[in-house]
Structures are given as C-alpha cells and as structure tokens.
C-alpha cells in the first residue's frame, strides 16, 4: 500500500516541488501584493436607493437584540423573508463582512461605524427614505462618528457595567467586583477586546481608549489576574444569567430587562454602573455598500422606528432608543430602576469607545490574544 513512498527519486522530486511552492509563496510575499477591496470605490456608497422592498432582508445583529415579533410582523406586512444571522462581537461582525458575505442591514457600534464609513463600506442613506427617524434627538444630527449623519441611523444607546444576582452577591460598585470571592467560578468577562481592555484601562485610572503600551499592559494584567476566577468569556450575558451559570457578568445595561423578562424571579437580577468609569456607546442601523437589497433594508429601518414598534422593541430589549416618543416607554422602565438609564447627557459627558486607528488596534489586539491564550 505504501510501497515506493520513500524511494530516493521520490524524495528529490518532492523536495523540488516543495521548493517551487515555497518560492512562489515568498515571491508573493516579496512583491507585497496588496489587499483587495479594503477601501472601495466611493461610487458604490453613493447609490440612490428608495425605501421599497427589493428582496429578502439579510439581517445581521447581536442575538436577542430585537423583538422577534417585530421581525415577524415586518415579514408579514411586506411579504419578504428576514434571513437572520448573529454575531457575537464587533470583531466577529467585521470578520464576516471582511470575508465577503453580503448583508443588507447591520448594527455596528459607533467606533466601528467610523471605521467602516471611512473605508467607504457603508451606503449613503437619504433621510427622506426613513421619515420615522426624523424624531431623533438633536445630538445625532452631527454625531462624532458620522458627521453628516448620512450613513447611519441610531438604534440604541448602551452602557457597560456588571449584571449581577442580588440574592447571591453583594457589590461594591467597582469593576473589581467581577473578581469577588462570593462569585468565584460564576463570573464572566465579555468576550470582546474593547470592553475588557477598556474596563482594564478605567480600573487603572486611564482613559477608556488609552493605547499606550504600558497602560494596555496594565489593563491586560487586570484581566489576567481575574482569569482564574472566571467561568468564561462570553457576550451571551442574557443566556448565562438566565440559566444560572453566571452570578456576576460583565454586560450591558439593557440586557437586565431582557433577563428579567425570562426568569421566575426578576427581582433578583440587577445592574451596576462602575465607579471607575462607564463605557457608553451608540449602536446604529447601517447598510453595507455591497448590500443586495438596500431598499428592503431602508423599509425595515423605517418600520422598526415606527413609534409603536419602537416602544415594543424597547420593552423587549431594555435599551433606550433616542427618539422622541418611544423614549417615554424607556422612561417608564427606568423609573423603578435608574441604574439602567443612559441619557444624552451621559453620552456627551461620558467615555465612548473611539476608533483606535490601526496601530492602537494592533496593540489592543495583541493584548487581547494574550489574555485569551494565557
């Protein structure tokens, strides 16, 4: 069966062939063949699109971040199907986008919008096509990540903190609560490099977006020190809290509402904003430049922003949508639990994740890989 395998002539031939292959590889490397499609032609982003259904919607979002009943209602109303995929981190979203998959509507957070927009990856949105977005707060007429406000439409505001079981743990209100002894083995950090390193920076008194090597090393150390007590890294804070695996979870404010909707004893679940600093952000609707059905996407966005629908959505996911009208629903939710509130003032004064630029990102990236691998 394996005769002649290691005959001398074979060896030489294979060596030659291997050598040729390697030479080809190094040749490619040496020539510095460039990256394809990183920043595409601006023309594609300037397509004129009307808000009418032009096919099924390929929808790409965090899981459990939009009321499923609304999606079904949209399918029914416009006779199209919504093909849903989920990502579990912004990086995961970027990886899928980068590998050429085509989506119609995505939900990047602000700093990622900045990146995508600068690389001409987002379709220009004509505000007239989304009339329900006209009630948006003034802050979003000129957000830092989309100065002309013509490539995204705000979806929700969020703040990062710690979700915890009131009946199991006593919190001191610090990021270090994740390492509390009482929660040993039932604690999670978010599986997101920005959130973890950002929190690490805040704990050490640095700016949220600090990219200086020494500061990042300290943030990395904070996470490494926590690692032995963690049960895992996960962005599925809702799932982990609901099934009891987590008593303390690095997570987002609105998810507490979602959790409470699913458990037998909602009073046991709470959220705390940490004293060292609170990362804030905006998640936005965006349409990739290579979307196949942008018309349906625009229709969808307008549909979700219809005041009644938006209210229903807020009740499901627990995050404020920055529009006059639906915000009353959120205010009602927050009345009993001010901890989960995120206001425009918070946004204006608080720390938001910024686009770190290639070099900064590389520093954070390396630190993150080391945290995961250790």
């Amino acid at each position, binding site marked *: *069966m*394996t*005769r002649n*395998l*290691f005959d001398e002539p074979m060896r030489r031939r294979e060596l030659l062939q291997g050598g040729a*292959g*390697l030479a*080809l*590889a*190094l040749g*490619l*490397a*040496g*020539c*510095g*063949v*460039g*990256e*394809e*499609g*990183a*920043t595409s032609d601006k023309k594609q982003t300037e397509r004129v699109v009307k808000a009418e259904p032009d096919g099924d919607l390929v929808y790409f979002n965090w899981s459990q971040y939009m009321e499923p009943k609304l999606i079904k209602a949209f399918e029914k109303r416009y006779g199209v199907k919504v093909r849903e995929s989920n990502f579990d*981190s912004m*990086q*995961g979203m*970027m*990886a*899928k*986008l*980068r590998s050429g998959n085509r989506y119609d509507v995505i939900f990047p957070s602000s700093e990622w919008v900045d*990146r*995508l927009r600068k*690389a001409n*990856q987002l379709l220009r949105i004509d505000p007239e096509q989304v009339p329900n977005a006209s009630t948006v707060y003034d802050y979003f007429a000129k957000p830092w990540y989309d100065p002309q406000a013509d490539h995204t439409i705000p979806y929700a505001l969020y703040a990062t903190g710690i979700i915890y079981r009131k009946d199991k743990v006593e919190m001191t209100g610090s990021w270090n609560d994740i390492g509390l002894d009482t929660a040993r*083995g039932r604690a999670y950090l978010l*599986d997101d*490099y920005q959130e973890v390193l950002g929190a690490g920076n805040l704990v050490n008194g640095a700016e949220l977006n600090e990219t200086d090597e020494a500061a990042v090393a300290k943030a990395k150390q904070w996470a490494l020190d926590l*690692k*032995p007590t*963690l*049960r*895992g*890294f996960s962005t599925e804070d809702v799932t982990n809290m609901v*099934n*009891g*695996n987590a008593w303390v979870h690095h997570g987002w404010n609105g998810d507490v509402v979602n959790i409470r909707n699913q458990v037998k004893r909602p009073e046991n679940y709470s959220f705390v904003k940490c004293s060292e600093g609170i990362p804030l952000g905006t998640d936005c609707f965006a349409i990739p430049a290579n979307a196949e059905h942008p018309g349906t996407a625009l229709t969808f966005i307008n549909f979700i922003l219809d005041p009644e629908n938006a209210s229903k959505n807020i009740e499901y996911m627990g995050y404020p949508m920055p529009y006059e009208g639906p915000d009353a629903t959120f205010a009602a939710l927050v009345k009993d639990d001010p901890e989960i509130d995120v206001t425009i003032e918070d946004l204006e004064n608080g720390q938001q994740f910024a686009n770190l630029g*290639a070099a900064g*990102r*590389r520093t954070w*990236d*390396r630190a*993150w*890989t*080391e945290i*995961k*691998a*250790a």
Partner: protein
Amino acid sequence: MTDADRFAGRFLIPGGLWLLIFFAIPFVIVIALSFGTPGELGGAVYGWYPENYSRAFDPIFVPVLARSVGYAVATVALCLLLGYPVAYYIALFGGRRKHLLIALVVLPFFVNYLVRTYAWAALLSDEGIVNGALGLNEPIRFLNTPWAVIGGLVYGYLAFMILPVYAALDRMDPALIEAGKDLYGSNWSTFWHVTWPTTFQGVLAGTVLVFLPAVGDFVSAQLLGGPGTYMVGNLIQQQFFGAENWPFGAALTVLMMAFLFVWMVLYLRSAARAAREATA
C-alpha cells in the same frame, strides 16, 4: 514504463489535479499570507513580516501549544485504553453478530459532532441529568474543566481508534492466539507477546488518526471548556473570527502543520516498513 502503467497513470490526473488545486495550492497561500500583516479593515496585506512567526514562539503562547499536545496525548491514551478492549471483544468473541456490534459502536459517530458534544454539555451541566441524579447540595462542576474537554475529545474521536484496531484484530489468524496460549500459558502473556505486536500497526494507525485531528480541535474546548482550556485550534479560530489577524492565524496554522507533519512522516515510514516486512 509499460503500456499498462501509462494507461493507469492517466487515471491519476483528475484526482491529482483537483487535490493540487484545492489542497496543495491553498497551503502555499497560507504560507504566503503568514508573512503578511493585517489590513485596515481586518483582511491581510502581503509583505515580509516574519515577526508573525517569532510572535508564535512568544512564551505566552507556549502553554497553549503544550496544552493542545497534552490533551491530544491524553485523548489517544484514553481512546486506546477504552477502545482496544471493545475491539478485542467484538473481533474475537463477536461471532455472527460481529458486524452488528461494530456497526453499533460506529453509529453514534454519525450523530453530528456538535450535537454529541452539546448533548454531553447538557448531561454534565450544573442543572443536568447527572447532577440531578447525584442529588448533591452543591452540583459537581464537570464542565469548563480540562477533563471535560478531554472527555469531549475522546468521545469525538473514539471511532478512529476502534475501527483500525478492530480491522487489525479481525484480520489476525485466531490460530496465532491458540499457539500463543500453548507457548505462554497465561492470557496476559499471550496478549502481550502475540496479539499486541500483531495488531500494533492498527494501533499506530488509530493513534495517528486520533492524535493529529485532536491537536487542532476547537469545538470541544469551546463547548465544554473554560477560559483556561484554550487550545491552539481556538487560538487560530480566534485570529480569523475574533481578533483580526489573519496573517498570525496563518503562521500558527503553518507551525501546527509542520509539527504534525513530523509525526505523519514517522508514521508513514513505519507503515511502509511494516508493509515491506509483511510481504518479504
């Protein structure tokens, strides 16, 4: 080269060409990319950045590699320990139901690997059936531990050990065992001096078929493991779908393949030698 050879030689072309284009050439691309650097939006730019390789040897990654090899070795050992007796019994004592029994052994492996692993996660979880049956105050933490991952790997790859060993045992002439018993007396002696050496090639094949894929596995670690059970497969997967560092991921892939290639070559040589000796 005879006529027959020439005729048959042509048959090598379709399959060979396909493998060349879709298997060999992608390796070249992986190697080329491993010298690149991440692009602006996450892809890769070719160039000459050998630091991807030096970074792979950074002490912080050594535990990951060591762990992967360690888990894989444990997996092979357990597969052998658990699987050999099964193959032995079925081959030698299965009688007419041999085929049915071996089919039963193999059947679970046609449930999707993910579903099987997730089923174990459900069985062993804190609220799962096993803990429920034990009824203790504090549920035993089976999951998110290294043994859970190894268990998952064993369960995932057991068939790859059992089948070659069974084939070797089945091929063995039972008269050999009879003769061995006469010579050596005890069952154990017979096994050690007769059965084991005869089936060794099968064991070796099983070892290779389990060890190599297990080193690169990431599903078990992801579904059953915790933050401390990161394997090199998880690291590579993370570079492509988490961190945006395809070149580093490619470098890790190349290194892993190089490491495995050594074992592959050793195995092929041993198999070739055994085949030569068998026909000598």
